[in-house]
């Protein structure tokens, strides 16, 4: 019997290799994915946000003001423009993200302690840029406000120490935990690559049952009286093994070559990935048992796989989704996986925390495989 199982596995491997489309997708898809995303996020952090200054005053005070913007962390002054209209166009075209407009007579008004206004414009159409730009600008404005306020009070004759004490001198020390450098590559590259990987695996898994029952050679298997459970279990083992080999390759590239940090042990992550792979394969198998042909089976599987990354809350948090949707997103195994992956790779919260994730994925697999078995048996009656 073991020899037969080996035979089935060998044939399945050959089948996957000989299906050129599947071969390309499984072997190349995830690898191309991680390389592409690593290249896209090669800049890794949001720094040097393109900033432009329109200095309509060109006084010492305005240059001082411009200097403060130049020294602001994460902002990079890339141009000095001549007018508001130029600034507006640059922002509209997306060349500039932060614009600073220093009005005419700025220096005079500052010297005379008259009210003057500096316009700081942030292009908020891309919130990744905008949130970071906003934080940088807020830091500048707080310090600037205090500085100029103190000067104004001094000019009004207030005692220097008293003037200084009017402003609370707060030194805000920031710490980004788990990803201290706020590295976008660490946050997204591997997750996106795994997203591509799980989509490719879904396509492959969706051929599990229909790939056998939808071809004429199914008659041979039926005529031989061979156990179908044995057949599909053997096929599934090969599928899952191939999926895991690709995951291993991705992890090697991510952790070994790109040096993406990993908080937990690699063995823990691999075990978690294995459990997810089984759950993922079970969905494909279920779809494969429901569909009447391989195209529909692929479509059904991808209907789950395609939106799953958005639904998983890996980027836009689950807690920010409407209350009624929050429990619903936990119905798909990808949510458990990507949430668990985030915890394991950044926080390593321990077995007690992660146990529920493992159990959920195992339960999912059991349910889907059972349903697939029942549906296939019913269809083959």
């Amino acid at each position: 019997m073991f020899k037969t199982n080996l035979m089935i596995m060998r044939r399945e491997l050959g089948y996957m290799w000989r299906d050129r489309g599947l071969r390309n997708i499984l072997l190349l898809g995830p690898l191309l994915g991680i390389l592409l995303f690593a290249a896209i996020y090669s800049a890794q952090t949001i720094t040097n946000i393109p900033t432009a200054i329109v200095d309509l005053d060109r006084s010492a005070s305005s240059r001082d003001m411009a200097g403060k913007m130049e020294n602001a962390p994460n902002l990079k002054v890339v141009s000095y423009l001549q007018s508001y209209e130029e600034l507006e166009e640059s922002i509209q075209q997306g060349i500039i993200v932060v614009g600073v407009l220093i009005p005419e007579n700025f220096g005079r008004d500052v010297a005379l302690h008259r009210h003057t206004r500096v316009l700081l414009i942030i292009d908020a159409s891309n919130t990744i840029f905008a949130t970071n730009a906003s934080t940088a600008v807020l830091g500048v404005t707080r310090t600037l406000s205090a500085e100029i306020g103190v000067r104004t009070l001094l000019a009004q004759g207030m005692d220097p120490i008293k003037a200084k004490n009017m402003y609370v001198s707060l030194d805000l020390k920031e710490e980004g935990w788990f990803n201290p450098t706020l590295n976008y590559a660490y946050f997204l590259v591997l997750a996106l690559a795994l997203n591509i990987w799980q989509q490719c695996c879904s396509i492959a898994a969706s051929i599990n049952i229909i790939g056998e029952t939808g071809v004429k050679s199914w008659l041979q298997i039926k005529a031989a009286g061979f156990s179908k459970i044995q057949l599909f279990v053997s096929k599934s083992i090969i599928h899952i093994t191939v999926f895991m080999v690709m995951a291993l390759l991705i992890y090697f590239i991510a952790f070994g070559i790109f040096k993406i940090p990993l908080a937990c042990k690699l063995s823990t992550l691999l075990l978690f990935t294995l459990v997810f792979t089984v759950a993922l394969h079970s969905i494909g198998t279920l779809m494969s048992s429901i569909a009447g042909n391989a195209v529909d089976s692929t479509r059904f599987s991808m209907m789950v796989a395609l939106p799953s990354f958005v639904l998983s809350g890996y980027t836009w948090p689950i807690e920010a989704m409407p209350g009624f949707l929050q429990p619903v997103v936990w119905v798909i195994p990808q949510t458990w996986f990507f949430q668990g992956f985030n915890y394991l790779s950044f926080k390593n919260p321990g077995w007690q925390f992660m146990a529920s994730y493992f159990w959920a994925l195992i339960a999912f697999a059991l349910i889907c495989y059972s349903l697939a078995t029942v549906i296939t048996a019913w269809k083959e009656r």
Partner: protein
Amino acid sequence: MSEQVLVEAKDLVQKFFFKTILNGVSLQAYAGECLGIFGLRGSGKTSLLHILAGVDRFSSGTVKVLGDDIKKSQLFKQRTGLVTQEPSLFQDLNVIENLDYIAALKNAGHADIERVIALMELHDSLRHPVTALDAGIYQRLSLACALLNSPQVLVVDELIKDIDLFSRHLIIKQLKPFLQSGGTCICGFSNIEMLIHTDRTGWLDNGRLEFYKPSDLREKWTTMLNSFQEPGDA
């Protein structure tokens, strides 16, 4: 031909929703005989043969193969072989891989593979993909796969239809020792030529099976054909 009944069907009914395909078919196939099932396209031959091979379910009746009620046990499949009308070998495998794989499914060994290769003279085609095979070689391969587990019951559908004469000759040649060794062959066909190779033949029409001696069946067939001729037809 002996008196031992290897395959028995009683009052077999096969319905598909509202359509009745087999309407109370009964038959007995004895050891050493080649039982023919003659029927035109759509008569239900393939359905009947697939039921006897245990690959299709049926609505009512009983079928016993090698003494086993096929609804209760699958063990009979260890001693049966099936050749289908539609190509049903593994298209992702070549000839030797098909033999290898199906042998594994049937628990046959390497010696059995070599035996059937020799029987069906497949030596020159072993590395060819099955999709590239001529019809005759494909059919020889199909029969070879069916014979891997040294079956006692052989169910074949359109065994020699539209294939080259050499393959036809080889296939028929191998049927004889099979029958002489006590096996039974149930053979579905729509071409009257196959009649000479059968011992008894049933005509399946409108879901009913009526048995004839081959000569009687041929006479009936000729009468029916002639009944459509009009005066003045060549």
